[in-house]
């Protein structure tokens, strides 16, 4: 975990908003498309920087409060930078009864983070729980970015993290 992986810097200045403008144009600057727009912005920056939210609001002719309201309402949006690897632990019913919380605790311990501070300082990992990933047949489930890992145990989850760290260090 020695290597620092920085989150993309928040954009500043007109040049930096070019990507946001592209996204806005793709949606014809239509205020009804606010959620897809924010989804694409977040894909670009891995979070929703405050300046971008204000910029999006102005561009769509919406009050900034409305855009902040939407951005804070939905759990997929985050206003703080996320790590390079987002580890989502499913805590749906099926995973919960098969003791998913033990996996969460193991991950917190390995990465020295907690529910309040769920991103590692080197910006490599963010650990969060989701209510259900719909892969209940494989409970408990852990998803690293888009990759689903089923029938997890605390030990296997830690191994998964170790493997990623080793891969990152080898870079």
């Amino acid at each position, binding site marked *: 975990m020695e290597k620092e992986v920085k989150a993309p810097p928040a954009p500043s200045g007109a040049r930096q908003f070019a990507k946001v403008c592209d996204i806005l144009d793709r949606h014809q600057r239509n*205020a*009804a*498309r*606010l*959620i*897809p727009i*924010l*989804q694409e912005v977040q894909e670009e920056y891995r979070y929703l920087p405050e300046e971008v939210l204000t910029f999006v609001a102005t561009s769509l002719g919406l009050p900034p409060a*409305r855009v902040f*309201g*939407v951005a804070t*309402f*939905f*759990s*997929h*949006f985050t206003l703080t930078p996320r790590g390079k690897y987002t580890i989502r632990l499913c*805590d*749906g*019913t*099926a995973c*919960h*009864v*098969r003791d998913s919380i033990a996996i969460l605790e193991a991950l917190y311990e390995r990465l020295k983070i907690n529910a309040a501070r769920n991103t590692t300082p080197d910006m490599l990992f963010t650990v969060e729980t*989701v*209510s*259900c*990933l*719909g*892969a*209940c*047949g*494989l*409970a408990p*489930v852990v998803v690293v970015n*888009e*990759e*689903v*890992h*089923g029938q997890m145990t605390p030990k296997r989850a830690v191994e998964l993290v170790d493997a990623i760290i080793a891969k990152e260090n080898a870079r």
Partner: protein
Amino acid sequence: MNRQNANLATGPVDLERIAADYEAETRQLTRRVVICAGTGCVAGGALKVHRQFLSRIAAAGLAVTVDLKPENGASHQGLYVSKSGCQGFCQMGPLVTIEPDGILYARVKPEDVEEIVDVTLKDSRVVERLLYVSPSTGERCRGQAEIPFYKQQQRTVLKFCGRIDPEDVREYIHHGGYAAARRAFCQMTPEAVCEEVAHSGLRGRGGGGFSTGRKWELTRQQPGPKKYVICNGDEGDPGAFMDRSVMEGNPHSVIEGMMIAARAIGADEGYVYVRAEYPLAVARVRRAVDDATALGLLGDDVFASGHSLRIQVMEGAGAFVCGEETALMASVEGKRGMPRPKPPFPAQSGLWGKPTVINNVETLATVPLILRQGAVQFRKIGTPTSPGTKTFALTGHVVNTGLIEVPFGATLRQIVMEIGGGVIDDQGRPSNDGFKAVQIGGPSGGCLTPEHLDLPLDFDSLQGVGAMVGSGGLVVMNRHTCMVSVARFFMQFTQNESCGKCVLCREGTRQMAALLDDIIEGRADRQTLVLLEQLAKAVRKGSLCGLGKTAPNPVLATLRYFRAEVEAHVFQKRCPAGRCKALRTPEILADLCKGCTICSRKCPVGAISGERKMPHTIDAAKCIKCGACAAACKFHAIVGV
């Protein structure tokens, strides 16, 4: 897409020609290898298995087809390797089916592929070791027809899920797809479509159980040229994945259902709202909409009827409450997904104030079946008040987990013991007397207990016992599960997902979770139970939408069916399942303790004492239950910390 549309859609889509072309092109295929590419199997490495098949078959010099592109009638030869949507038996994945032999291989790894190619594809023999072994009889099952998990089901909505290629619109058409939509547009009036669906008795599969035909009729009667049809694929109930499987496995059936709904109410625009947690479903539905549009099934002048229909796919952003119809529509409009009071109902004033029909994925996927076989035939399955079949996601402490479909009226015993193969203990071993409860309908639902094992499941019978079908999640729990903790789990869930609009839902769920914490952590008394019940009733009464109205259900069900267990926590400070950490008594098992003294050195409060090489003891009064001793003990001699 528009360009393609203009090229292809010169006349109405000729379904028969597409089907006949497909038939002619595929007639000379000798065998088909279907690799399940549902979320579950992909997680198990199904895509690697798929790639391995392609390279091994090529290495073996066999002719193989991977893509059935319509190439001007050229016929394909040899083997056909395709991917499918969820085949349902997720636990045994990755699954590989070989047709027409009817062989199903379970837990296939890339290393196994070479053997399958050599033995089955070249030599037409079965690789015995990859067959599914029934845990109850120990027999090897050759294919779906012999596997108890499949044998007891009646698959109608899921019939083609896991068999056809979900990304091939022509295969869907080949199996009779879109004929029902054409019938609705060309041969039926909107009134007749509503009537046929009403007559079938179809009830909404999303939880409410409202008559679909009536909902459509109410929307049809509304004046105005602009109406919308929405498919609700925001399947948020934890422990449910039926809609995901349908969208991944047979997305065209959902599109066809939407077309029929649009025809019935006179809508020219539709939305499919899919949860963002289901990336594969989003991709497959998008592809299905694009393909249907390219063929001219969607767009202007559908089936030369003069009506147009455009469908957009919208991804959710992670809010459970958006499964509620008014909240979903707010979110489509780009607002916070908060519900609003009804009336006006969406049928009167829905998306952007226009009349809107909003149906669940499974409901829409059932509609083409009704138009294809007729309402009378459809009613022959299921019970008089709940006709048809229902898909359930069977999970938890059960031998076979996965996606199942049974007629309404099937009993819990059939589902859990026969299809599910019985209950398992915490180590995954079958446990005959282990059944404690089934949680049905997610955070809005309730519990079914051993006394309900022979209850025929349908909308009304479940309501009678204080549960609901909900979207169809069935989580089996064994006797080592603490029901108070389960109720606490659901309360935490609804509390997180409450949108905050209604005070009773927002604050009430938080307080109920706190009261449940008191019970779990040993602070509760008689008054806690009284307060909990009062609060549950108040939240039910004082909330606007289904989320708040049903949030107390898990608590009330626990109090109703597991009162003794709750009272043991409250009055005796004891958790009968031994799960609640605060209520456990720390103990060192003398027969396991070797007296190595590691635990006493690890204990931060000096609660453990004992002579070297003699069994140690733990002082419960001093112990803070940090667990450090148990983690350090190599002999697993310390319990209750």
